[in-house]
């Protein structure tokens, strides 16, 4: 009886329970492919006074990840839709150690490759509800974590973890992240602005496991006050297809 009592007290104090940091480390440790190719359909939906207005973007994304060295990843984004910007391509080289990304933009109508600098992290990505900061993700060491509670979400048991930036530089004062206990994938994020108000909600209702890798099939980012949301749907996803290195050069930018 005494042992049971001690066990219950320990449980109530959190003994045996994972910390917020440990949960996020599990997420961070999910296997990553060497490269990935996917087509992303982006729907920008505005709702106002019962009316809905929808705009579409579609991009093809090529990405290669480097396990070591100065380069962390290279990615090439090519616009497929709408027609006016079809063929416009963005090449990004991401580095380790805080070095700024190298970026190039190819404008097919001008047939010109332009060197560009990364937009501010808080800028909207292609007019969507995602910012460049949201799309880029965060290094695990950039935030401190605290486990808030456990909840069921999309039919799965999830941890709800609070993430607070350790240093300035983020657009958000804090985030609340729902992590699945089964897959260790993020299923939902609440974003709070500098005043502590909830501004955006990211939901990941659909995902599946393809071999060793989890693939997000659909994610929805909703701006709370702006009656606007962005739906990203992934299709034709391929992992470890051995993308040629030249894809991530000016040659790849210009190649149709």
């Amino acid at each position, binding site marked *: 009886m005494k042992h049971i009592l001690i066990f219950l007290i320990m449980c109530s104090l959190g003994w045996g329970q994972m910390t917020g940091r440990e949960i996020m480390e599990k997420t961070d440790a999910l296997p990553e492919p060497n490269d990935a190719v996917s087509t992303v359909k982006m729907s920008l939906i505005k709702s106002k006074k019962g009316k809905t207005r929808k705009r579409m973007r579609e991009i093809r994304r090529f990405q290669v990840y480097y396990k070591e060295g100065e380069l962390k990843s290279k990615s090439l984004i090519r616009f497929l*839709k*709408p027609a006016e910007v079809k063929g416009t391509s963005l090449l990004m080289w991401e580095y380790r150690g805080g070095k700024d990304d*190298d970026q190039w933009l190819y404008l097919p109508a001008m047939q010109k490759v*332009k060197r560009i600098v990364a937009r501010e992290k808080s800028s*909207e990505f292609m007019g969507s509800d995602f910012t460049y900061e949201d799309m880029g993700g965060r290094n695990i060491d950039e935030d401190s974590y605290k486990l808030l509670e456990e909840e069921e979400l999309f039919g799965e048991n999830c941890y709800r973890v609070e993430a607070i930036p350790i240093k300035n530089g983020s657009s958000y004062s804090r985030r609340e992240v729902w992590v699945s206990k089964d897959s260790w994938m993020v299923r939902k994020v609440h974003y709070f602005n500098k005043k502590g108000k909830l501004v955006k909600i990211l939901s990941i209702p659909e995902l599946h496991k393809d071999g060793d890798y989890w693939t997000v099939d659909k994610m929805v980012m909703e701006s709370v006050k702006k009656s606007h949301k962005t739906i990203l749907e992934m299709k034709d996803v391929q992992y470890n297809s051995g993308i040629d290195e*030249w894809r991530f050069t000016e040659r790849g930018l210009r190649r149709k």
Partner: protein
Amino acid sequence: MKIKIGIWLLFLMLGVSLQAQLEFTGFYQNWLAIRAVEEYDIMLIRNRVRLDGNLYGETLGAYFSLDVRNDGTNDESDFEISLREAYVDLYFSNVEFRLGKQQVVWGKADGVFINDIVSPLDMRMFLLQDFDNIRMGISMAKANLYLGNWTLEGLWIPKFEPWHFAKAGSDWEFTLGLPADTVWGPWGWEMVEELPYIFHVNDEKLPENSLENSEFGFKLATFLLGADISLLYLDGYADHPVVEDDSVTMIIDPELGVPTQIDTYITPFYYRSPMYGLNFSRPVFSTVIRGELGYFAARRFSDLNMQILISDYFQSMLGLDFTGPWGSSVSLQAIHSQIMDYQSGMVDDETEQMATVMLSGSFLRETVIASLLGLADVNEDAGLGRLDVSYAWSDALKISLGGFFLWGNEDTLFGQFSENDNIYLKIKYSF
């Protein structure tokens, strides 16, 4: 020979079509421009349809761009169908070939063309065309060799194609001539009083079609220490002609025995002027620094006596691109031109400076884009400004409203068109 080439191309196209995907895109655009100075007439009603066909595969590709355009004004219309580009691509592991009518863009500057001289320009509307329509495709063979961070591009242009200028009598006809108040007679003395001095322009003299007159060039490009660097060489013709006088006729008042009018017959001609260039661009913090240096050997310049003088010529551009919050950006460019061996009497100035500014911002989730472009000739206090606001009504439909404003004395590049200020409405449907 032509039949053989045609069969070969047909075969190639068939091969491409069997292995590759076929896609068509394009747009319809209506462009209405109304003069913003007295007369306030309709300067342009342009209807344009563009159809682009694209075949692309792993080892072969092909592309064509067909343009159908009808320009109408109050009293005339001008219809044109043109094949802007039509080429075949061949892809190998480290080498690519592009054969056919194509555009090549070598410059880093926006709105000015220093090293970007491979493709001729369509100047029939001066600089008012959209910059993505201002270059013209020319027949050439191009090869690219890729070795690590290095790319060597070689091109051969069998036949020189000049810039297109507006026809005589149109709003955009180039009217620059000799200064009216300092007319030198070709016989060598200064006229004491101004006379009607009438130029008669003969047909331009183009180089004959021959292997000797073909053009060729190279570009060596690399990514070094965070910078994109290109070395350029083009052995070709200068992109616009100089004029020389063929004959001069002086009409003399029979009673007074003094000249009353001078008729000069001039012939524009093209000449070879090799170009050596350097391009670079590199980001520094939140700014991209870019530049072009171009050295042109044996350029021809007219003097006030309509004689041709020869000198090397140098042009440079330094540009800064700032990226701001909320989709805003600022681009500044300073351009310097120098006649290396300046000789008195040359019509052109020894040095010229230009500055450009481009401000732009996007709003309402990138559906509204506002931009202000300014090109100023610092020496002459002349320039061009364009204000444009465009709204993406839907993914396919874009509406633009704006205005072009040109200023300066009528003997300056921009000022000669100062009566052509206009406001415009463009509607573009992309498919």
